[in-house]
């Protein structure tokens, strides 16, 4: 009888998934990069300098991996968590004390903090190597938007535990929107926006109200931030990440001296 791995690799099922032999010779190491969906983001070959860890710091890749960790742990957390005043905090207690895999929330929170840091480090490296210079200007701009989305993801997630730390951090942060020029009811210029002598910008119609869904951080805010955190921002980030990676390839791959 042939060895087990030969039986598996020779089976119709295996061959239907992987249409070529194992990547152990040069030809198949090229083919694997071209035929595998998850690997096709990469080029087939690359300058040695471009994969040197002391040059790239791997921080972009680490950020993407942390995003995947956040997605997986986030989905699992959503099984346990209900974004209502009645349940949000109690579900946190249950996650800590009752649920198996009791470090789910820990992984999610620490990976979120780490992701903010790795995004910064990635941008730091890109700046220090001048990699934003032509032809990569546009990808840097997308990167800045992704930085913003990362911060917003973290910010919206900060509220969900619904403890004192959460509600007051979001209160302090969202109070800034109250002072938005023209669009905040305590911002410069908003007093000028009147219609027949009636203020258009009040604490029930300004930028902060739009953000919180209420005059203060409350149940509406919890729901709004939950939807932003779990659906809207991750989708936007995923789309921009796809463009970001695609543009890395289209703009000539990882930067290096000409």
């Amino acid at each position, binding site marked *: 009888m042939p060895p087990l791995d030969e039986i598996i690799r020779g089976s119709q099922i295996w061959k239907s998934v992987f249409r070529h032999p194992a990547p152990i010779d040069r030809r198949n190491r*090229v083919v694997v990069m071209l035929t595998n969906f998850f690997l096709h983001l*990469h080029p*087939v*070959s690359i*300058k*040695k*300098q471009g*994969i040197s*860890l*002391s*040059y790239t*710091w*791997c921080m972009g890749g*680490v950020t993407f*991996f*942390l995003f995947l*960790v956040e997605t997986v742990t986030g989905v699992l957390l959503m099984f346990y968590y209900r974004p209502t005043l009645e349940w949000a905090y109690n579900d946190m207690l249950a996650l*800590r004390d009752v649920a198996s895999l009791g470090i789910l929330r*820990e*992984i*999610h929170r*620490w990976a979120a903090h*780490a992701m903010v*840091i790795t995004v*910064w480090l990635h941008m*730091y490296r890109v*700046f*220090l*190597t*001048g*990699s*934003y*210079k*032509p032809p990569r*200007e546009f990808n840097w*701009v997308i990167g800045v938007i992704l*930085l913003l989305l990362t911060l917003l993801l973290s*910010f919206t997630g*900060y509220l969900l535990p*619904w*403890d*004192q730390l*959460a509600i*007051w951090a979001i209160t*302090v*942060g969202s109070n*800034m929107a*109250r*002072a*938005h020029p023209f669009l905040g009811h*305590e*911002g*410069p*210029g908003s*007093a000028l926006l009147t219609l027949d002598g009636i203020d258009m910008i009040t604490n029930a119609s300004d930028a902060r109200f739009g953000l919180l869904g209420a005059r*203060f951080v409350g149940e509406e805010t919890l729901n709004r931030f939950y939807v932003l955190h779990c659906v809207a921002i991750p989708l936007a980030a995923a789309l921009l990440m796809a463009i970001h990676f695609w543009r890395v390839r289209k703009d000539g791959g990882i*930067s*290096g*001296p*000409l």
Partner: protein
Amino acid sequence: MHGHVSYEDFILQVAGFLTTYYLFIAAMNGLAAFYLWQSGRAKELFRLPGSGLAVTTVHVWLLVAGVFTILSAYATNGGAAALTLPQAVRDFADARMGPVVYTVGLLLLLSVLYLGRNFFVKPTVAWAGLNLSLLLMGISMTDMDFASIVMKPDNVPIVAMIYLLGFFTWLSASKAVQNDARTARGEVPLEKLDDEKVLVWPDLVYTELICMIALMAILFVWAILLQAPLEEPASTVKTPNPSKAPWYFLGLQEMLVYYDPWMAGVVLPGVVVGGLMAIPFIDFNKQGNGYYTINERKFAYCTFQFGFLVLWVTLIVMGTFLRGPNWNFFGFYETWDAHKVEALNNVDLSQYFWVDLLHTGRPKAADDAPMIVKIGYILLRESVGIMLLLFYFGGGPPAMVIYSKFFRKMFLRMGFVRYMVLSNLILLMALLPIKMLARWTVDMKYFVSIPEYFLNF
């Protein structure tokens, strides 16, 4: 903060931590010595007089490893309380420390590191600096106030970030110094040497896989050792003091000391984002694309580092570790006392001008005057500040071209639009340190203060 834990109990807890901590540093130094010995990269420092035996960096780091091992053993045997800074030193540091000393001190430190970069990037020097900072962290951990802030679960990542930033700044500067030296000798940058192509499978794919596994391991250990914070249930009536935004926004919250929310919370963050996006379009320097260098792009490097390390990171560190109740400043070893009172005697520019200089009192329209008259009086009242700002933003860009050769060359190469974007971004960025200085030196509150329309600047 920690009224219910006695110092003796605290020291017992910290002793366990310090034992591991010092042992970890000892292992780190032992590995460094082993690496230097094996790779033959050890440097001879001097020869012993009698025998002529060479003393190398291997011996030094072995010795350091030994010292940290002894510290570790000492800490675990109840000596942790003795491994500490004298109270007098801590009190002195707290008394001297303030926003001015902290900010200016860090700026000076970074400037010294920058100017002396050829010396400070040397591995031996950088490693010694790392050891010293870890030792200082260790002996500071025996201070209850220091430990209670640094060990707050959400603050631990920031401590990690400081060390990561230090490491990567060193790494990039070290490569840049090497590249600049090579360029001066007419050689190509280091990155150019590895020009040959390799296959992505296995060379890159395996690296990525190893990174993923290492990261997962780090996350698991971190998650097991440190529980995510969960405070009391949310209450809209119990306001904690201090109330802090999430840590990555604390630089912005710190700016609230100097600016009103519409500037610190809306306009300036918008300018930061817009300014970051503008970087590739205003940096016309074609050099330094794809390799580390400082000399070939000094202006871009210094501007970015000033914005990132000084204005962003140090303000976050200050907002996290040094701002306590009522957003008052507290030294590293100071108890966060909610009753600490700091005199607020900040004065508006219009007050200085009309009251202190002209002795006339600030102009004020009659209460029943029509709107347009009232606005006229407000403009008159704030005219000095408004003119100052107009002069700053209107006169700044042309003045830079006229009086500075550097900016004149830049203007000629960049063209009008790019130059205006660049100069205005720089002026906006410079306004924060200018406001800080005006606050520290003459208690300046607002240059333009129109509270009637929430327009304070």
